[in-house]
């Protein structure tokens, strides 16, 4: 059994490391520092840590101010509030003026499971990828998180980084050559391709194992960068396997599935199914929620077989 490391812990550590290397980095927080783990940076570099309290809109505006002055702000709140509360300055300042602000939305998807629907985020990918100039990254494990934080800091422009509260099985190791915009084939197969992002990547790997036992060989692809999306790997997967299933802890409207379908419709129309949310969830144990709302390996297996039959 592989190591399980919480994405948010990996993020906190990565931010602290980044702070030590880059003195232009400043961190803003909206009172969830012990949840987002931005506090790890805050304890180390208190003079560069600005906790503005429960004021996400102000936090985004303030970050814009820092960015106009040449700093690299990382701002933190729950993913759903990054959209819901800070949307205006993110649109009219950060995206519009192409500012160097990194939006770190934690507790994504259903990972803040017990708090219930108000704290879940199923629309963040959809909103942020619709903004010009915005890079959208969704990470699947500890290693990918650390590399994404470094890579985001190096981007000259705004980045949305989607982070989970949940413990995630470590998939990569330090030799991982993470590149923004480059998807990764984690497993080869020829009957279908499972394209996952974030914590759903692990579910795709589980599903692939179950499908193998049933006699199907499927490719698994990790798409960490929803925008700009890796069109090449999507088209190659469509051409080589002939059926696609996308899997995201997000609405099926507007997120990874939509992004992939846009590529396929444009270039190589292919039977495709989407795994994602279609309704509000509820409070509960994280794994139980994933099962109930069809975000688990069993649901992926079913969807994959459906697409294979359409070939």
């Amino acid at each position: 059994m592989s190591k399980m490391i919480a994405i948010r812990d990996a993020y906190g550590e990565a931010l602290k490391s980044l702070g030590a290397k880059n003195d232009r980095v400043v961190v803003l927080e909206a009172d969830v520092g012990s949840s987002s783990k931005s506090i790890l940076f805050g304890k180390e570099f208190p003079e560069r840590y600005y906790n503005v309290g429960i004021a996400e809109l102000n936090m985004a505006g303030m970050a814009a101010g820092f960015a106009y002055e040449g700093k690299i702000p990382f701002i933190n709140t729950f993913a759903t509030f990054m959209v819901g509360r800070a949307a205006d300055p993110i649109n009219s300042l950060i995206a519009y003026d192409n500012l160097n602000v990194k939006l770190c939305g934690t507790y994504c998807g259903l990972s803040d499971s017990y708090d219930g629907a108000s704290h879940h985020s199923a629309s963040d990918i959809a909103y942020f990828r619709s903004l010009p100039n915005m890079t959208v990254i969704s990470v699947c494990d500890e290693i990918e998180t650390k590399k994404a934080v470094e890579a985001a800091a190096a981007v000259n422009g705004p980045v949305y980084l989607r982070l989970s509260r949940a413990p995630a099985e470590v998939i990569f190791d330090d030799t991982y050559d993470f590149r923004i915009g480059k998807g990764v084939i984690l497993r080869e197969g020829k009957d279908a391709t499972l394209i996952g992002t974030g914590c759903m990547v692990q579910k795709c790997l589980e599903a692939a194992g179950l499908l193998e036992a049933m006699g199907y060989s499927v490719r698994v692809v990790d798409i960490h960068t929803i925008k700009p999306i890796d069109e090449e790997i999507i088209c190659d997967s469509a051409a080589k396997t002939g059926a696609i299933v996308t899997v995201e802890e997000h609405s099926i409207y507007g997120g990874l599935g939509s992004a992939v379908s846009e590529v396929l419709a444009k270039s190589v129309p292919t039977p495709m199914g989407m795994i994602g949310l279609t309704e509000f969830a509820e409070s509960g144990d994280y794994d139980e929620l994933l099962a109930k709302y069809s975000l688990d390996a069993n649901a992926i297996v079913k969807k994959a077989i459906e697409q294979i039959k359409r070939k």
Partner: protein
Amino acid sequence: MDITMSISQNEAIRLEALCKELRIELIKLLHKAQTGHPGGSLSSCEIITLLYQNKMTLDPENPNAKERDRFILSKGHAAPMLYLNLVKRGILKEADLSGFRQINSILQGHPCHHKTPGIDVSTGPLGLGLSVGSGMAAAAKMNNEEHFIYVLLGDGEIQEGSIWEAAMTASKFKLDNMIAILDNNHVQLDGTNEEIMPLGDIAKKFEAFGFRVIRCDGHNIAEFSDAIDLAKAGRGSGAPTIIIAETVKGKGVSYMEGKNVWHGSPISDKLYEIAMSELMEVSK
């Protein structure tokens, strides 16, 4: 603290004459474009003009210089008054004005940082400038820089909750290098502030949020100049400052003064003639 008049009589006269000229240019600009916001641009004439033509440290040759004072037109719809001042200051060209609000031009309906030289922050949505100013002010303190950050707010604009979030932040982080100015013209779009959403005692509200509050007549150059200098003297006090400038929406054009309908209406040819004759007559 004893402040003697901070601006010479000659300079006050020069600036008053300039404001008269800019009001004329503003009406011409908005009439030609048949779009734009006359009321709130006219009410902020003295405020923006004094800042850009006298108080702010700016180098027209180098509009992005690190040492410059920053200005955020948080009430972004007063953009035309800002553009006219940028032309006067030598940062924009007279010829640029013909593109105001037109396609393929550098002069957008609301200030745009990435298309227009001399614009520090893109604005328009309202309620964001004090937050951005806070970030700029905090960055300046981090860098031990000496410049000031000016943020011009509208009174309708302070109905946005984000203004109060920013006020709390400015107080917490002791941003005494940020000077907010309220263009208190008492009128918004659907009606007066009193009719739409009464603002109560604005001075007390900002004081409660930890601001130094200075009041002045926003159309009196000498008084506003004193207010700015008193605000700047607040550096080191640990508190941000707000100057509540009493103004008249549509100031200078009799049929516009105090009228919400002139927040954003186009000016007809007939009304243009009336405005011009009023603004051009020799006063005093």
